[in-house]
């Protein structure tokens, strides 16, 4: 799975829990991975916008604490895409595990 595909999967997984805006998505990825994974803002928004163009997520402007933020939410199509990506990811993990052997 390419890095951009991984980022797509991570974004969809974050939005599966609840709608979030860009900064919160980046923070959630960092926090959940205990700092190991970071969604660079330079790539985060192009991927978010591409996911929206494909209909996997939808967005609307909301007011958060007096500030206007664009909030993203997962669509039905996005839920299906996330399930497929999770399946692919599990296959890759088990394939790599099989090659590495029981020492890991």
């Amino acid at each position, binding site marked *: 799975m390419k890095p951009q595909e991984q980022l797509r999967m991570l974004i969809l997984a974050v939005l599966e829990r609840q709608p979030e805006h860009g*900064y919160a998505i980046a923070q959630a990825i960092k926090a959940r991975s205990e700092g190991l994974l970071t969604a*660079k*803002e330079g790539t985060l928004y192009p991927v978010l*916008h591409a996911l*929206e163009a494909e209909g996997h997520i939808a967005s609307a*402007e*909301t007011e958060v604490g007096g500030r206007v933020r664009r909030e993203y939410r997962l669509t039905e199509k996005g839920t299906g895409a996330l399930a497929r990506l999770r399946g692919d990811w599990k296959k890759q993990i088990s394939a790599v595990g099989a090659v590495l052997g029981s020492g890991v």
Partner: protein
Amino acid sequence: MTLGIWLDQATINIEVRAAERIRQEYAAHLEDALGAGTSEQTFVTELGSAAAANADFIRTYLTLGEVSLLDAHRGPLHPRWLWLYGLLSFCCVTLALFISPVRSLLVAALMMAGLAFWFWLRAARRSGRLSTRQAGQLCWDAAIGISGLGLALAFGQISWLLFSFTVLTGIGVRRWRKLRLDHSTSDSGRAA
């Protein structure tokens, strides 16, 4: 480098409204990052390559060139083009009639279907189901597709059919994807 300079590079050749949205989102992100104690310099450094972001955005958003082309494509939806369509249909049907009456009927039916589609596009645009750009693009794609199919039917030239389908599935589909976001961006409201 400041965020403004980075954004200038990241939004080169991106349609004005989309570029504005990108700017707003990055500015909001910076605001949150500054609130969390990150400096602007660190934030901009962590953004990475503006050229790479620009290339990614161009895959999603309409470019300025595409917008001017699409706006020029709005023309065929104007009623003044109906006479040209009528003349073209008449010529195609007459030409096909010389070859075979059956083909002539098929071409006539195709032209009628095209006309019905044209009226549907106008209605969809009026009701807001399609944006003006979407309706214009569909009209343009349909004109190419129907012309290709009409010529293929009239003269048995399969190459015209292949050409029209290549145009529709290539350029048309790619631009249509971008137009979907263009439409939703222009219509997305502000939730409280």
